[in-house]
């Protein structure tokens, strides 16, 4: 089920009313309702893949319990690796099998050996990368004794399958989300109203910004051979806003929906396009994945301890793995590597933690220096997104070579005034709300009620009227 669908618009109020009016007196029943709703939400897409979620849930629940009873280091390691193998095995099979087979065949044929291998017609289960990482974090934390394993199977199942963030995150840590299933939730007006605002803003980002930009971006990228540098640059800019609106929009809807049910999820995006350097960008973009890689890959690899070479190696590893996590295509690997390259100077000069605060905090506008830093960082990310969006590396290089050619100085096609207006409107609202968890968090709260409601009305109407069809979220494919 998609958040931007009629189905979800019917599903959500029904679950909400059942949750707060029917099952509210019994915590177990309330958690059980979450499981049933989540399975329905997921099964709406393809019920067959529910078995994967149920299997992962059973494995990690059992491994967690067994780990709590086991003191023998070797046996504990075996238990941990059995969970990792099963979870990553599913992920590897569904997401990377064909990629590896095809690349092995290409590599062997390059050396003159012909090997036979059949790629399979595999459908990638929606959200597998997200819930796999979420359940893995539970097992690893239990293994490291950072988290008490749960005995409450219903709470654990609800944690794994929690529908607002099941298919595209935020990737929640068990230490944050799981305990919330143990406690009775009380309805909180402010939290729910805030949730509604965040859902509204998330839908605006998805339907109005991302889907509108997508039309132009797709038209340009799908026919990139026919366009000059200026149009291709415009296409890359459209995609830059498309991917941000799409993914952060999803996260906002997920977090807002969770708030309606009394849950607090972690912030996943913090106005990343206002970052002053790439390190800051990565502290603000897909935070739940970045911190996951930091805690479960970067730090175990040694993190920033050791010499420069060790740091550089670790940075490359996490960026390349992060790129590969997005999809089985070399374009994602290059995208990751490119970001690692961007990161390098900051790391070597030890400047990767210089912009920890919010840009222009307490001021209306950034300084000239900040402005140029923002523009430079934004420009670098736009270049990286070209690899992310392209079908293959050849296309990305061809686009970049046209962008950095004379054809850049020409009138671009696809300069739709309405899209450009919407993007500017979006940037302004995001800038005003940059100190908050999401742009609409406090925006308008001090205004008089009719003005505030009119503002929400305008956003709601733009969502309603610019809704075209139920466009899937980009990150579903990851």
């Amino acid at each position, binding site marked *: 089920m998609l958040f931007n669908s009629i189905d979800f618009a019917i599903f959500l109020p029904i679950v909400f009313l059942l949750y*707060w009016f029917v099952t509210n007196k019994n915590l177990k029943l309330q958690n059980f309702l979450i499981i049933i709703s989540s399975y329905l939400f997921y099964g709406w897409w393809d019920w067959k893949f529910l078995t994967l979620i149920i299997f992962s849930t059973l494995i990690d629940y059992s491994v967690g319990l067994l780990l709590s009873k086991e003191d023998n280091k070797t046996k504990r390691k075996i238990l941990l690796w059995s969970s990792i193998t099963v979870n990553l095995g599913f992920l590897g099979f569904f997401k990377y099998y064909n990629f590896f087979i095809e690349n092995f065949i290409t590599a062997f044929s390059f050396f003159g050996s012909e090997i036979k291998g059949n790629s399979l017609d595999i459908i990638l289960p929606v959200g597998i990368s997200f819930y796999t990482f979420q359940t893995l974090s539970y097992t690893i934390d239990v293994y490291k004794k950072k988290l008490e394993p749960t005995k409450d199977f219903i709470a654990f199942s609800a944690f794994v399958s929690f529908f607002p963030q099941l298919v595209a995150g935020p990737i929640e840590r068990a230490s944050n989300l799981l305990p919330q299933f143990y406690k009775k939730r009380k*309805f909180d*007006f402010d939290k*729910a*109203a805030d949730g*509604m605002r965040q859902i509204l803003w998330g839908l605006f980002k998805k339907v109005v910004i991302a889907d*509108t930009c997508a039309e132009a971006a797709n038209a340009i990228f799908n026919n990139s051979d026919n366009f000059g540098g200026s149009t291709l640059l415009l296409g890359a800019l459209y995609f830059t806003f498309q991917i941000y609106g799409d993914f952060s929009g999803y996260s906002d809807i997920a977090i807002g929906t969770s708030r309606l049910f009394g849950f607090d999820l972690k912030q996943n995006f913090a106005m990343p396009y206002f970052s002053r350097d790439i390190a800051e960008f990565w502290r603000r973009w897909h935070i739940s994945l970045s911190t996951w890689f930091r805690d479960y890959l970067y730090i175990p690899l040694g993190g920033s301890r050791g010499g420069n070479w060790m740091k550089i190696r670790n940075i490359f590893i996490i960026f390349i793995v992060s790129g590969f996590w997005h999809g089985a295509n070399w374009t994602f690997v290059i995208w990751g590597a490119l970001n690692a390259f961007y990161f390098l100077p900051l790391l070597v000069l030890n400047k990767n933690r210089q912009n920890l605060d919010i840009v222009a905090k307490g001021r209306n506008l950034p300084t000239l220096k900040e402005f140029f830093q923002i523009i430079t960082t934004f420009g670098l990310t736009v270049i990286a997104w070209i690899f992310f969006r392209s079908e293959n590396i050849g296309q990305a290089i061809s686009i970049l070579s046209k962008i950095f050619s004379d054809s850049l100085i020409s009138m671009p096609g696809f300069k739709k*005034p*309405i899209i450009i*207006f919407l993007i500017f409107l979006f940037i302004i609202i995001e800038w005003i709300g940059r100190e908050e968890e999401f742009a609409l968090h406090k925006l308008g709260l001090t205004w008089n009620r009719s003005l505030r*409601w009119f503002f*929400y*009305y305008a956003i*709601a*109407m733009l969502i*309603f*009227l*610019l*809704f*075209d*069809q139920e466009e899937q979220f980009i990150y579903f494919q990851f």
Partner: protein
Amino acid sequence: MEQFLKHILFFLLFIILLAYPLDILISNHLNKSNYAWGEYSTWNDLYNGQINSEIVIYGSSRAWRHIDPELLEKSFCLPTYNMGIDGHNFWLQYLRHKTLLKYNKNPKYIILSIDIWSLAKNNELYNSNQFLPYMLNNSDIIDFTSSYKGFTTLDYHLPLIRYFGNKRAVMQSIENTFFFPSHATKRKKGFQGADLVWNDDLYNAKKNTEYYEAQLDPTLIELFENFLLESKKFDIEVILVYTPEYIDGQKFVKNRKEIVTLFKKFSQKYDILFLDYSNAKICTKKEYFYNASHLNKTGAELFTNILIKDLESTIEQNPIRK
């Protein structure tokens, strides 16, 4: 919780209350655009009572593309308007006729372009976006379009519903409101000549099927006959015109003769002029067509002049200039 639900309900109420004015705003800007293949200019003229012509041309795209009203107007010194509606048979041509009589003065002459599709079944509401700005609670549009697939009852009666999922139309309206209004229509008194050369439409059609056979619709035949009777009653003179079709295209239609005979019968029964250009010289010259059933701009000019002459020659029997 009560407070929360109350707020949600109030907000929904707020949305409902403002839906109607917003609908009007969107519709009033959309109908000033060139969206829906420019059909809005004709609909606007119809609803705003700006047709008021002595001669009106009815028909499908073959009327719209073939008969230049300005040439007719010049020759006969009578205000003329082309009301051809692209992609539609007599069913929706009649809707335009009904709207014309409701908001404009009655014409003296109706030049009705007929062809094999005029009375044939058509389930698709082609270019349905042309109805968007006018269809809210419009009983005529509801009567004539609800039998097609496309719009739902809610679309006809509740504001904004028909715009939901129709992003392009809304974007067009917003662009027309705030950015670069594209008011200038490409149609001249409803007519738009096509500056095109011969394409592969007929070749592709022949590749897909051996021949084409139009399925006549009895309801449509009945409506057509009623229209002829009604026109007589209102003292409106109907002239049936089978405008040129490229010769190979004519051969491609299996029951063409049968359909032309049907129109001949109507012409005899109701004593109306029927000008059939199926065998005209122009039908053998590809350079005047862009596909088998449509003349290009040059062909349209040439044909309109032929039509003018033919109409003049009948003046003695059916005086056009009074």
